[in-house]
């Protein structure tokens, strides 16, 4: 596709054959990257699997031994683990819904090229470069009584502000607000980039057919965005728990474990209780669940990967 400038079909066939022969010379440039990635990710992944079959714990005086699937069996009876799965689902999907809605609206605003809104294109992206830990601090400040002032201003309009971070339900909402703030720009860029590629003749045709603006969005833009939305959803689900630093500073999984996601539980188990074997089984089970949910759609999403560029 990138050789569209080549003159004649014959030349392109010749070029391809020559290049095929040259492939051999280029493979070794790829080798360091493949070795690095295999050594740094695949090997540790297998190692984690091994760890999850042991009783390894740095807080125990007994040495690690092989215990088979015992850790995994224990998970089923671990109420804290089950709760963490539910809380993970909440903290992945609740922000995701708002990210999709607001991300779409923002992309729409930018795509309409409304006069006087150039500044929005510049500032909407700011949260993307925020270190997640600072994002967490920022919202912790805002939700802290007195320091943040949110409840003061809510009071001015007659709303008695809730205890944002110390009430279990409100804590989930507070973290979701931070997650929407932080990752909506990603969704916006994805949608906006896709909108730029939509064929204008479709819009032209719908206009000639007398479609209203709303109908155009409903019947042209939204269907065209379906593929992109799927990509966004897969990425946001897979990376949804990258909010770890936010939880870490805002609530530390509290109050009473109400914002403890599964990766946070694995963190506590592995690095505070030092039960590394059990923590491995927690995080691998979570990874397995993610993959099971996403596997069917991933095929669809990734089928055009690598065709580009």
């Amino acid at each position, binding site marked *: 596709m990138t050789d569209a400038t080549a003159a004649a079909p014959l030349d392109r066939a010749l070029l391809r054959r020559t290049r095929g022969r040259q492939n051999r010379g280029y493979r070794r440039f790829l080798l*360091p990257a493949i070795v690095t990635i295999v050594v740094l990710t695949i090997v540790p992944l297998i190692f984690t699997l091994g760890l999850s079959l042991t009783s390894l714990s740095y807080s125990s005086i007994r040495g690690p031994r092989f215990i088979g699937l015992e850790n995994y069996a224990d998970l089923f009876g671990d109420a804290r683990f089950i709760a963490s799965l539910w809380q993970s689902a909440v903290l992945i999907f609740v922000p995701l819904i708002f990210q999709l809605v607001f991300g779409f609206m923002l992309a729409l605003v930018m795509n309409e090229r409304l006069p006087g*809104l150039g500044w929005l294109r510049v500032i909407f992206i700011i949260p993307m470069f925020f270190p997640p830990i600072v994002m967490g601090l920022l919202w912790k400040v805002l939700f802290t009584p007195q320091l943040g002032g949110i409840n003061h201003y809510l009071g001015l309009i007659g709303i008695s502000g809730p205890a944002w971070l110390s009430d279990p339900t409100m804590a989930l909402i507070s973290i979701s607000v931070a997650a929407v*703030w932080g990752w909506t720009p990603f969704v916006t860029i994805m949608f906006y980039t896709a909108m730029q590629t939509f064929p204008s003749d479709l819009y032209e045709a719908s206009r000639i057919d007398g479609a209203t*603006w709303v109908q155009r969005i409903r019947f042209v833009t939204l269907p065209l965005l379906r593929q992109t939305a799927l990509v966004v959803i897969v990425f946001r689900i897979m990376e949804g728990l990258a909010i770890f630093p936010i939880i870490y500073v805002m609530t530390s999984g509290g109050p009473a474990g109400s914002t403890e996601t599964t990766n946070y539980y694995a963190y506590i188990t592995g690095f505070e209780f030092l039960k590394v074997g059990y*923590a491995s089984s927690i995080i691998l089970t979570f990874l397995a669940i993610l993959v099971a949910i996403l596997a069917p759609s991933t095929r669809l999403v990734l089928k055009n990967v690598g065709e580009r560029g």
Partner: protein
Amino acid sequence: MRVRPRRITAGLYTFAIVWGLFILVPFAWLASLSIKSRLDAFADPPKLFFTPTFAAYGEVFGDPAFLRAIGNSLIVSTGAVALSLLIAVPAAYALRHIVGPLRHHTLLGILLIRMVPGMVYLLPYFVFYNKAHLMDTHIGLIIVHLIFNVPLIIWMLTPIWAAIPHDLSEAARIDGATPFQTLVMVDLPLMKGGILAASILAFIFSWNEFLFALILSRREVVTLPVAIVNFLAFEGTEWGKIAAASMFIVTPAIVFGFLVRRYMISGLTGGAVKG
């Protein structure tokens, strides 16, 4: 194209302005906190007008632990970017030329690996680093940063490499230059801009990284994001200091981020979106 009803235009403007405030006000709040005195910070009702003081910045930059953290962050981020480039640039170059399933599977594989939650990798590194004396070292942290930066750079450079003119490198090959000579003498000069952009983005990711740093370098090689958390743990009420330190971390990330924002999507999603 004036088919948009006025009501909807008004709605779009309203949303744009509300969203702009939603993004900016929290950031401005943090910035103002960094230049408020302790008294003003906790004033009720909140003070919108106050005498700015840069005392908190003075405290932050007078703190030897924080200065060491700046050094550590610079060393780790720079080292991670340099090493990632050394591995990823040749790979992106190879992927420009290689055709067929090898190319497809490589690109797909590194994308999937990037998507795996970091916590999965953290446990084995914790065990291994304890044994291998890599805990709390610069090089130990640099190595784990390769996990996300090598895929990021490869994914960012691949489409850029495809877009630069290839007549020159093909001419060089025909004249008998080896693939390595072609890379160094022809491709790299053409790719300067793209490589710079990829380096900046990778630098931001390293600079912002928290999870690995929290576990693998808690005591000696403390980086900035962990140093800030330490402020929170040891000096819980020093919000001015925390805000000032936050501003110091976030400002370079935003400034450099703006420079490379055009390239972000392919790096983050591996071009899984058409565009």
